[in-house]
């Protein structure tokens, strides 16, 4: 699974940067074509839902998706998942 932000829906309120327990979302630096500063993803493979969703068979955490007022955050299935070593710092 891969975390993604839909740039067409995001309005740049940065609520996702507040709630993510891994601090994956960082406030963006550059405005996009519509003048909206979309948050950036910092090593999104650390996301618990990306790593463990298939193992548990349900959505884990998912707070960023729930709190996003613009329904811009979602997960996409990878076409050919490559096993990757993920370092989690607490």
């Amino acid at each position: 699974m891969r975390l993604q932000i839909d740039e067409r829906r995001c309005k740049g309120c940065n609520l996702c940067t507040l709630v993510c327990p891994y601090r994956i979302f960082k406030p963006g630096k550059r405005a996009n074509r519509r003048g909206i500063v979309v948050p950036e993803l910092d090593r999104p493979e650390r996301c618990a839902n990306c790593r463990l969703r298939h193992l548990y068979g349900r959505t884990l955490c998912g707070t960023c998706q729930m709190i996003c007022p613009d329904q811009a955050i979602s997960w996409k299935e990878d076409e050919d998942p490559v096993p990757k070593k993920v370092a989690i710092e607490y």
Partner: protein
Amino acid sequence: MSEEDWLRQDRLPHIFCAGCGNGTVINCTLSAVEQMGWKRQETVFVSGIGCSSRAPGYISTDSLHTTHGRALAFATGIKLANPQLNIVVFTGDGDLAAIGGNHFIHACRRNIDLTVVCLNNMIYGMTGGQGSPTTPMGGLSTTTPYGSGEPAFDLCGLATAAGANYVARWTSYHVRELTRAILTGLENPGFSFVESLVQCPTNYGRRNRFKQVADQIEYFKSHTILVEKAARMREKGEMIPPDMILAGEFVRRNRPALGVRP
């Protein structure tokens, strides 16, 4: 099906301001409706007038956008005409507490099988930030420029006193708890009232020392106290700070309800 399928993709992005909490509550409500496993043809969303009442326009079910304050009256009509339908009412604080106040207490009294999600942003957001009955004491708005001098309405207390079957309050920060509360409300027969405090960065936050959207969310995070904890503190004789927001489940009971499916 997922929550995404309940949204009208062609209407998004919605018109709510950047950081408005209404979108969060739509997510929570759709997640709860999804968990209930309701069909789209059997679900109706009803709303009145206001920012919050734009919400059913983004949901791909039958919906009713009614006159100001009369959402509950219309919803009562739908439920009594066809008890097979599942009805969720989105309403704002100005809609429910100010203009529709009488409809609200009588819907609670009749205990109709509805779920009401009240998006309380503590202000009339759409019309330019006038003070509403739920503006907290001292809150600044365009009609109370020196701070509101009136005590605010406690909607959960009102619903409890008027006889609703399920009453809960959460904020737009507590997304998990809010989803669970709405789910319990949908399952519960009779009138279920879930109040959700939402941030209004454009008209409330910017006049009340919440410069960023995140500031008001942090306020909700630090200034809520569980009902159970407040009761324990009262037993011990401790003082609950006056600016604390009580959150949690206020009442769950089984009074006879109107419009329940046989």
